[in-house]
């Protein structure tokens, strides 16, 4: 068992260097996430989607961690992980289908926007209850270990989730069973209106790992390379049989908690303005232009292309037919019970008689 260290992991020398040749690809993914975020907030305001959870400020944390994973690794996300879904190659249209809840939505119109499930991308179904995915990621890691599969699981959650039952149980189990898992906490400073310092008296969230005998690492979540390296390192440890790591990526939630939230009730715009000085997308953009990897023109082209791609996906998603009205009776069980069949039939009957409009 690795000695507990609140600010550093032991280096296994297994983590490879940051793939500089892919930096523009990472940047593009961050930009795509930002573009989608802005468009989706507008769609929600226009009533074209019912709800939206923005991720602005968390792009580098998600893109850096996402790129550090192998496609075979399993992800147990919360609801703010749009950027991560993009890294995994989920098509933009698939994401918009889910927001719209149309007949192409893989969650079949059953979940609120942002609560995705993409089995093909090993992106496990997200729910709203906070923290519940944490223990599940540990269990999947225990299962992978039992089968000797060379993969890790990673779970994403917020600062607020560190107060949940599952955070405690998850870190404890993972430590005891040396589960090959990564706890990736995006500390965005807020749990709706509750500031980070009122969530826990702990100085950092990473130091909570100490109590469970695991390494805990704090990383600047606006620095895509730092995030990448921290996750690579944790992944290498996990695969080497040395168990889990807790990573605290320090970021800032630029937008409201969700489109139902009004942050002016509890935080000063000044704090947001300050945080935006470290906007991860802008930081990487200026660096790439400064170092000549991109020019102002080639950068502008990236934004334009991605905006057009998102616009096309929205158009296509809005043209996709609505969800079939009786579909909500499906998937309760593998085979419907007789009682459910009866309820579905009675619903159909009411539609036939004109009592209900489907």
């Amino acid at each position, binding site marked *: 068992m690795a000695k507990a260290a609140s600010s550093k992991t032991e280096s296994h020398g297994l983590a490879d260097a940051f793939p500089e040749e892919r930096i523009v690809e990472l940047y593009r993914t961050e930009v795509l996430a930002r573009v989608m975020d802005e468009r989706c907030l507008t769609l929600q305001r226009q009533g074209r989607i*019912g*709800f939206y959870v923005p991720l602005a400020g968390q792009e580098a944390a998600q893109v850096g961690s996402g790129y550090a994973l192998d496609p075979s690794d399993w992800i147990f996300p919360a609801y703010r992980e749009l950027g991560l879904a993009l890294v995994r190659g989920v098509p933009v249209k698939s994401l918009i289908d889910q927001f719209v*809840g*149309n007949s192409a*939505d893989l969650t079949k*119109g*059953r*979940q*609120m926007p942002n*609560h995705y499930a993409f089995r093909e991308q090993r992106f496990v179904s997200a*729910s*709203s*209850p*906070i923290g519940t995915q944490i223990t599940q990621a540990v269990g999947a890691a225990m299962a992978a270990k039992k089968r000797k599969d060379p993969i890790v699981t990673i779970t994403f959650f917020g600062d*607020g*989730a560190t*107060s*949940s*039952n599952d955070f405690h149980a998850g870190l404890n189990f993972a430590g005891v069973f040396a589960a090959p898992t990564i706890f990736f906490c995006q500390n965005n400073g807020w*749990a*709706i*209106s*509750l500031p980070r310092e*009122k*969530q*826990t008296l702990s100085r950092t969230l990473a130091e909570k790992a100490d109590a469970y005998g695991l390494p805990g690492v704090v990383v600047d979540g606006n620095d895509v390379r730092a995030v990448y390296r921290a996750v690579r390192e944790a992944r290498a440890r996990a695969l080497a049989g040395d168990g889990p790591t807790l990573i605290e990526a320090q970021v800032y939630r630029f937008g409201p908690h969700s489109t*139902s*939230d009004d942050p002016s*009730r*509890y935080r000063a715009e000044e704090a947001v303005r300050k945080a935006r000085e470290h906007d991860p997308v802008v930081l990487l953009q200026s660096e790439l232009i400064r170092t000549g990897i991109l020019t102002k023109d080639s950068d502008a082209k990236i934004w334009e292309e991605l905006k057009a791609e998102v616009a096309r996906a929205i158009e296509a998603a809005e043209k996709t037919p*609505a*969800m079939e*009205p*009786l*579909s*909500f*009776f499906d998937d*309760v069980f593998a085979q419907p*019970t007789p*009682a*459910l069949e009866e*309820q579905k039939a009675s*619903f159909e009957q*009411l539609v036939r*008689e004109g*009592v*209900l409009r*489907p």
Partner: protein
Amino acid sequence: MTELTLVQAVNRGLRVALSSDPDVLILGEDVGVNGGVFRATEGLQKEFGPDRVIDTPLSETGIVGTAIGMALYGLKPVAEIQFMDFIYPAFDQIVSELAKMRYRSGGQYPCHVVVRTPYGGGIRGGLYHSQSTEAYFAHTAGLKVVIPSNPADAKGLLLTAIHDEDPVIFLEPKRIYRSVTGEVADGDYRVPFGKATVVIEGTDVSLFAYGAMVPPTVEAAQTLLSEGISAEVVDLRTLVPLDEKAILASVEKTGRAVVVHEAARFCGFGGELSAILAEKAFYSLKAPITRVTGYDTPFPYALENSYLPNPARIAHAARTAARTQ
């Protein structure tokens, strides 16, 4: 009297309790600075301070467990669970502890906590911001379960809950938080538990509803009236204790019963109500008891209007019953 929405009435009720009794306090997520995600506690922290309107860390078991400790010590905590869908981390504290404290201590440790929580669908909340799981709590001995359907009852029942001697699960119909307004008595207004109200009197069929299902049930009754069917609408108000007398009296008069709730059908509260009617009003019945409920599926997002009982479905069931002689 003041004209208020349901959520404002909750707010006024809390305010009256906080001003009249120094032992009352509120705790929950986002209830203080933010005034609650539905604004039920708006302005209360400013007025009564952060020691009496407490923003907690994100832990429902923490909220209810500490509320139990406070209650054992003599305070009157009102815990808010942000959505009923998020009550389950506290289920153990509610079911194993809160409900049983008085009983298991032989009456030495009564434990009075009010757990307020918004419930129900119709707000595009999907699986986890829409559920109506009152049956779990009504099934647990030792918990009172209260569900107001209008602003006056919201305030009056809440103040009764806060001054009751037993734990109360207080379910607020968030779908009609702002859509219904009504005159609400000022000051310390109380509505007793265990007293159903007859919202509309009728002679042909009894429609039983509570919470957010009362307005569509009333609408159904109005439609039926224009067809010459006289439906009686009974608002149960409290599921535990249940006003059996009022329920039986209504069915003895009409001979027909339709039970409405948005919770799933199987083992929903309608099952209990139907059993009571079958046991105690059997000889008055002229038609089978019917239930109009949510379906036995999780709560769907895009198709929530198909899932939820609406006036058309309620009227259809009542019509069918009324035509049975």
